[in-house]
């Protein structure tokens, strides 16, 4: 660093602080912590003092703790480009960004005004359009932008609010002025992450947060909830508010689930909703339940395949008509994405005058709109120093300084072909703020994401928000896709503030509900599959564990090799020719087994099964306890990030570990989830999968075995973990008839088919049915059939299995086949009765 740009080190009491020893910020820039005089800004001093007392090493420990807490809470940000689809961990820097209460008050005033302005602009654009007709806004800027949705024209009654939630990206330039880099009017993300950052940091750094004089966030979220509830046109006393998410593939799905939980909203996807009789309904197990308010996290163009994008699978056909009818309120209103158009920045000062009669208080980053000929010439003449942006959604930009001759020419050609689609900006260097790096604080450029929510006639601004390390070019979404780091943004208060959590408070009267009939059908479907996947994963892991064990024993002693073949068969692994040398054969087999354990591409392997489990789990995140969720995160580490250089022995240990974690997951669900409708679907899924696998195992051991006999019987007992039960009960050598009694007929043994069928029957009988028919449902009849077949089986005929009796063997085959028939139909029957109204609508070919 040269003298010119290098910094002035503080000469005050903090000069000797080892934390600050490397803090060198550009002399020409603005640093949030150091004033231009080279002194620490007064409002930072108490914080630095506390940090100094902790010391760099301890701060690093706490930072690791923060990341660990984020990991176990499953705080993630999904990226589309990750082949494994596993989400990125949310990264948080432990050093907060401080802002004085005075500065914030003035900033909040500016944000509040901008929110009112945007609301007024939306009302105008989808109403009289005076801003276009009177020339305050060029028509091309609005009509060429895909966010302007003609279908939304006059879709809200006069006087209705268009903007409920407002998000804004801010940064400070070298002159110390805060400027708006982007207005977010669609469904601004980040409030949930902000809250989670605050909660996690307060846990990891209690001495910093406990009595800190900082403004708390809970009241802001309380306003979000009151405002949403207040939008309901029906049921004002107990409105049904849902959060509409695109689903677990959304980059910010974590936040959707988190906010739904925190604000007590139903988390729903488009296919959970239906429009009938002009109203919006949630499809639940108990039938249709009316929806009064939608907190929308789906891009508006995707919200109604009838009137907006016809190819959308995320929306609800007829939604816009339900809005017009005034039967459902949506926040933010459909059509609001037109505001996320960087070209509007040029016209906001004039629009503020015309629409509000006020001066715009908070400026935007200086922007040139190429649709205006004189601004276009300026842009083309200064291309080298500017950043050119497309006004279209997606945030595409070109940095003038980085363009080579050819790409520069191409860009100019594009601008000239459709100048109204481009703007240019000259982003100044952003202010810097301290970030923890190797036990020291270092300056990094920061941006802020602020939030406002409608309250009464105006807006309430969140005291704080999300700070992030940024160059100022990327949008929040793009920055997170690249793995950005976020910070907690503090607004200081004159006195310490009490920490309030929304979760610990109750709001007015609440209707107690218990039966779970309002469970969305899709959630029930996913819980059912969560059960099936967890059992399928467990069954496969157990088979693999046995196979690894036999492989290891085989290394020493050849006797068990034959039973290994049958295990391989059960795992769908082609048995290598015997001609291979034993050593080569060992390595081939080991590789095959390892593939199933660690290869993310292996069909039916553990990583794929686990991905299915995780995917389903994430769609029902709000139905699982936090501890269950932490176990899933730990399983994810074990399965998707296994240690390298795994041998058969380590693989076996790893599998044992996995089985225990998985058992803990299922056990915790049993102990934590209320045993109502949701849990029953989970349990039915598990036991249906388990009974099918147990029947397969029997077929393998007693009917189709290439090498039948004792070793394979042993495998059956170890896979089902029933060896000790057998020994205790029989105290004898293994006998197939005894094994069959233990694992087929016993209705008290959870590993036995008898018990499994009994449990399925009990839970299926307790499922709520949409119709109140006095007759047994299809699934009740099927499970009754299976259980009856088992109970009426000719046990005598099976008694001579060990004597290679063809009669017994034929009888067992008949029994196992007969049991399979109704059980294989059961899954479809359940789908038809309980999940089928989750059918996806499609577009009629237009004529």
């Amino acid at each position, binding site marked *: 660093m040269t003298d010119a740009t290098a910094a002035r080190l503080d000469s005050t009491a903090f000069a000797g602080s080892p934390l600050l020893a490397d803090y060198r910020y550009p002399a020409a820039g603005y640093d949030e912590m150091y004033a231009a005089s080279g002194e620490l800004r007064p409002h930072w001093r108490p914080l630095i003092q506390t940090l100094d007392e902790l010391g760099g090493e301890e701060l690093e420990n706490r930072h690791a703790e923060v990341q660990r807490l984020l990991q176990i809470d499953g705080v993630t940000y999904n990226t589309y480009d990750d082949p494994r689809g596993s989400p990125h961990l949310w990264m948080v820097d432990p050093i907060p960004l401080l802002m004085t209460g005075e500065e914030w008050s003035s900033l909040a005033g500016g944000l509040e005004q901008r929110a009112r302005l945007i609301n007024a602009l939306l009302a105008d654009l989808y109403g009289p359009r005076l801003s276009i007709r009177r020339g305050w806004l060029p028509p091309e800027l609005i009509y060429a932008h895909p966010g302007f949705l003609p279908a939304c024209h006059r879709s809200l009654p006069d006087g209705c609010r268009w903007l409920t939630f407002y998000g804004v990206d801010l940064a400070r330039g070298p002159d110390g002025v805060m400027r708006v880099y982007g207005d977010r009017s669609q469904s601004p993300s980040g409030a949930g992450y902000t809250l989670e950052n605050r909660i996690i940091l307060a846990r990891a750094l209690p001495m910093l947060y406990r009595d800190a004089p900082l403004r708390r966030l809970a009241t802001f979220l309380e306003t979000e909830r009151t405002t949403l509830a207040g939008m309901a046109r029906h049921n004002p006393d107990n409105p049904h508010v849902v959060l509409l998410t695109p689903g677990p593939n959304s980059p910010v799905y974590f936040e959707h689930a988190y906010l739904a939980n925190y604000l007590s909203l139903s988390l729903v996807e488009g296919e959970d909703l239906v429009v009938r009789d002009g109203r919006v309904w949630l499809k639940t197990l108990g039938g249709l339940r009316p929806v009064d308010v939608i907190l929308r996290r789906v891009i508006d163009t995707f919200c109604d395949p*009838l009137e907006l994008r016809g190819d959308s699978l995320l929306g609800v056909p007829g939604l816009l008509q339900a809005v*017009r009818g005034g039967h459902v309120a949506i926040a933010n209103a459909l059509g609001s994405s037109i505001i996320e158009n960087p070209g509007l920045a040029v016209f906001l000062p004039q629009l503020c005058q015309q629409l509000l009669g006020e001066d715009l208080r908070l400026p935007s980053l200086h922007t040139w709109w190429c649709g205006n000929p004189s601004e276009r010439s300026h842009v083309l003449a200064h291309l080298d120093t500017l950043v050119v942006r497309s006004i279209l959604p997606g945030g595409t930009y070109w940095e003038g300084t980085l363009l080579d001759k050819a790409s520069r020419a191409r860009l100019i050609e594009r601008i000239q072909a459709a100048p109204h689609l481009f703007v240019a900006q000259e982003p100044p260097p952003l202010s810097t703020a301290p970030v923890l790096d190797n036990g020291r604080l270092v300056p990094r450029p920061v941006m802020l994401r602020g939030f406002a929510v409608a309250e009464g006639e105006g807006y309430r601004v969140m005291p704080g928000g999300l700070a992030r390390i940024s160059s100022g070019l990327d949008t929040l979404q793009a920055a997170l896709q690249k793995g950005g780091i976020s910070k907690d943004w503090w607004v200081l208060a004159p006195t310490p503030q009490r920490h309030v959590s929304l979760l610990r408070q109750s709001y007015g009267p609440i209707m107690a509900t218990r039966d779970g009939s309002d469970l969305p059908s899709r959630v029930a479907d996913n819980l059912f599959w969560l059960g099936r996947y967890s059992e399928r994963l467990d069954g496969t892991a157990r088979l693999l564990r046995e196979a690894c064990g036999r492989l290891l024993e085989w290394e020493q002693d050849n006797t068990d090799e034959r039973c290994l073949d049958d295990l391989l068969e059960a795992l769908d692994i082609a048995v290598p020719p015997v001609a291979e040398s034993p050593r080569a054969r060992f390595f081939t087999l080991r590789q095959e087994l390892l593939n199933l354990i660690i290869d993310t591409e292996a069909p039916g392997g553990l990583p794929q099964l686990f991905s299915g489990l995780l995917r389903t789990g994430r769609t029902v995140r709000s139905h699982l306890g936090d501890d269950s969720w932490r176990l899933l995160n730990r399983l994810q580490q074990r399965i998707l990030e296994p240690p390298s250089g795994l041998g058969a022995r380590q693989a076996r240990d790893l599998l044992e570990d996995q089985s225990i974690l998985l058992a803990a997951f299922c056990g915790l669900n049993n102990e934590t989830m209320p045993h109502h409708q949701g849990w029953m679907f989970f349990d039915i899924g598990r036991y249906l999968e388990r009974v099918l696998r147990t029947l397969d195992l029997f077929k393998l051991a007693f009917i189709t075995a290439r090498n039948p006999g004792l070793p394979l019987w042993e495998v059956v007992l170890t896979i089902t973990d029933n060896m000790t039960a057998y020994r205790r009960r029989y105290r004898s050598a293994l006998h197939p008839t005894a094994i069959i009694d233990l694992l087929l007929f016993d209705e008290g043994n959870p590993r036995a088919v008898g018990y499994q069928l009994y449990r399925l029957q009990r839970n299926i009988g307790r499922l709520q049915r949409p119709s109140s028919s006095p007759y047994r449902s299809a699934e009740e009849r099927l499970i009754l059939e299976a259980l009856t077949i088992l109970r009426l089986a000719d046990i005598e005929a099976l008694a001579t299995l060990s004597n290679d009796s063809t009669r017994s063997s034929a009888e067992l085959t008949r029994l196992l086949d007969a049991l399979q028939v109704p059980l294989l139909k059961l899954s479809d029957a359940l789908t038809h009765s309980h999940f089928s109204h989750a059918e996806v609508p499609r577009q*009629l070919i237009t004529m």
Partner: protein
Amino acid sequence: MKYAITHHTAYTYSSGVALCHNEARLLPRETPWQQCGLSQVIIQPRPALSAERIDFFGNRVLYFAVQDIHQRLEVSVATRVQVLDNRPFAPDSPSPPWEQARQQLHEDSDADMIEARQFVLNSPFVASAAAFRDYASTSFSPERPLLEAMADLNRRINQEFTYDPHFTTVATPLHEVLKERRGVCQDFAHLAIACLRSLGLAARYVSGYLETLPPPGQPRLVGADASHAWLAIYVPGAGWAEYDPTNNCMPGEQHITLAWGRDYADVAPLKGVMTGGGSHTLEVSVDVEPQEARATPPDATAAATAATIAAEATAATAATPP
């Protein structure tokens, strides 16, 4: 001329539809040259809900939802319309040189002119491109009056393109229409609009019907007519002038206007989203019946072409309008 128009659409599904939401733009709009009587709309099965509104472009839209399980949906609209012979432009109407018109369109701050500028921009089915500009430039020679150049473009599309209902569908890209020189009325209207927009001029899509005359000596066939489409070009300060490239004419008393928009996507006569249904078949029939005796025979060329078109379109189950 007074007409009784019947537009009948029927979808038959291979399996039951549990729920469908639909939007119909089948109710003609009122214009200074078109007066609309009451429309009778019959929908089978009876919709649980229906509501009429005016859309962003001023068209009448009928929303309806059918909530009973059905395997066949029928929508029948009968309307009486009187079309007057007073459209604002005639073939010999004066107009400024097209470059001057373009400049005025882009620089004037008159509210109508500002609103017309949205029809210069790309829309779902029509995007400007050099190929369209090149095709148009033969007609739009320097300093040529706007409407004279437009009439020439209209004539060239009519003469250089083959009417072929089997070649295109709603989804056929416009570049292919230009390359193959084939299409139906919808393609020709889109093509002309693309040509005008590529020159920086404003043009909109008009959907409607055309009265067709039977070949001499034959009786009029009921239901043999079809939906039709043409375009309108904006003449700054004077309004919208309509052209029908399919018939190389300016629409007159025989052209009944349903709706207009940026392109077909804004004015699709019937669209819907349904749950269930499997595969489906579609039947469409249109009948444009004159309600008064004709004093003078209408333009023979236009009527004859339209009659051929209607017959062919019906043969092709009229999946797309001419």
